[in-house]
C-alpha cells in the first residue's frame, strides 16, 4: 500500500470513529475486498453473504477498538472475517471446512478479484445488469433478453462490450 493510500485510509477510519455515519464510507471502500475473501471461504453464496454482513456488523460495533499501528484496516477486517468463519464452522460442527484463511489464494489474486468486482459496480447500469444476470444469476441470454425487454443479439452485444470494458480496465490496473 502506498503511503498516500495509507494516509487516505487513516483519514477514513478516523472520520468513522468520530462520526458513525461515516462508517458507510468505509463500507463502500472495503465491501468488495471483504466479499472477495468471504466468497472464497464460505461454502456458498448465501453463507458468504452472512459472513460479509457479520464482518461489517462487528466492525461497526468495534470500530472504536481499532488502533492504527501500521496494520492496514483491511487486515483488521479480514481478521474479523476469519473469526466469523471459525465461529460458523464450530457452530455447524464442521471441522475446518475449507482452506485456512491465511493460505487461501495469493494476496495479489485476492486484490485482483476485489478490484474486478469493483469495476463491475462501475459499469454503465445496463451492462452491469447483464453481467449480474449472466454470471451471478447464471441466466441464459434468452432469459435476460426477456427480462430487459431487448433482443438476444442486443444482450449479447452488451455482454461483449461489458467484458471488453472490464478487460481494458483490468489490464490498465495490472499491466
Amino acid at each position: 500500500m502506498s503511503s498516500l493510500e495509507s494516509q487516505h485510509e487513516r483519514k477514513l477510519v478516523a472520520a468513522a470513529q468520530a462520526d458513525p455515519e461515516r462508517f458507510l464510507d468505509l463500507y463502500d471502500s472495503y465491501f468488495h475486498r471483504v466479499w472477495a475473501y468471504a466468497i472464497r471461504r464460505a461454502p456458498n453464496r448465501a453463507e458468504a453473504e452472512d459472513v460479509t454482513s457479520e464482518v461489517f456488523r462487528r466492525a461497526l460495533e468495534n470500530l472504536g477498538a481499532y488502533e492504527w499501528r501500521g496494520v492496514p484496516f483491511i487486515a483488521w477486517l479480514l481478521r474479523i472475517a476469519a473469526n466469523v468463519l471459525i465461529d460458523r464452522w464450530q457452530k455447524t460442527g464442521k471441522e475446518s471446512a475449507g482452506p485456512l484463511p491465511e493460505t487461501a489464494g495469493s494476496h495479489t489474486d485476492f486484490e485482483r478479484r476485489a478490484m474486478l468486482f469493483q469495476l463491475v459496480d462501475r459499469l454503465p447500469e445496463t451492462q452491469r445488469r447483464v453481467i449480474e444476470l449472466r454470471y451471478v444469476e447464471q441466466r441464459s441470454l434468452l432469459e435476460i433478453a426477456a427480462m430487459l425487454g431487448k433482443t438476444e443479439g442486443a444482450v449479447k452485444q452488451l455482454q461483449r462490450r461489458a467484458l471488453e470494458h472490464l478487460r481494458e480496465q483490468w489490464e490498465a490496473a495490472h499491466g
Partner: protein
Amino acid sequence: MADQEIARIEAALAECPSREFQDRLRSELERKIRMTAATETTGVRKGFTTVTPYLTVADPERLVQFVKDAFGAVETGRSIGGSGHLHCEVQIGDSMLMCGGGARGRETPLALHLYVPDVDAVYDRAIAAGGESLRVPEDRPYGERQGGVKDPTGNLWYIATRFPGVAAWEGMRTVTPYLHHTDVLGLIDFLKRAFNAEELGVFKSPEGRVMHAALRIGTAILEMGETTPMPASLYLYVPDADSLYGQALAAGAKSLLSPANQPYGDRLGVVEDNWGNSWCIATHLGQQTQ
C-alpha cells in the same frame, strides 16, 4: 491473449456479489448507525427508547401489582403528582412502561404485545394474577404461539413466544405497544408526518382490512391493527420536544399542553391526534429534580 484474459474474467465473475445484497447490507448498517445515534442522543432517559407505553387507569396500584405478579415486572420509580395521581414506572424484560392515573381524568388502557420465552406459563400466571382470558395460547399462522389476557385494569396483553427461527423486526423489545383503530392507514400517514415514523409492513385481509402493521419511530417499534378503536397514550423521548411538538401540530394534531419544563426533569408538550391518541412529547433535560 485478450480472449484468454476474458475467459479468466468470466470465471471470476461467477463470484461477483449481487447488487441487491450490497445495497441491503448497506441499508442495514445505515439503520444500525441511526439507531445507535438516537440512543446516544441526549433527550432520551437512560433505559428508555423513543416510545414508552403510558397506561393510564383508574387503579394504577392494582395494575402495578398485576404486572409484577404476572410478568415479573420490576418497579423502578414512583411519584405522586400535585393532583394526587400516581405515576409509576416499571420494567418488563428490556422494556419500560409508565403506569399512571388514580385521580380524575381520562383512562387510556393499552394493548401490548409481550414476548416471553414460554407463553403458556406466563399466560397461566397472568390468569392467576387476576387477568381475564381473551384467548388461550395457540399456534398462530404468523410465526408465534400467542394467548391474550385482559388485566384487571383493562389493558390487553397479547402474550407470545416466537417460533424458533422466526425473525422479529429489528429493534423489537419485550413489550411493544399495539394500537387499535379503524383507520390505520390514515393513522400511519399521520405518524409519518408528525413523528417521522417509518413504515415496516402493512398486512391486509383479502377484504382490505389492515390486520397488522408495524412502524418504527426513532428507536422503537409500534404495531397496529384495525378493530374497535382503543385510543392510547404514549410517551416519546426525543432530542427536541419543541420542534417535534410543532411538527405534530402541523400534521394535524391538537395541543393539550404546550412544551414546558417539568419538575421531574423532562421538557414536555402533549398533543392529541384525530384518532384520540395522546402523545407526550418529551426531552429529558437531566437528573430528576424532585
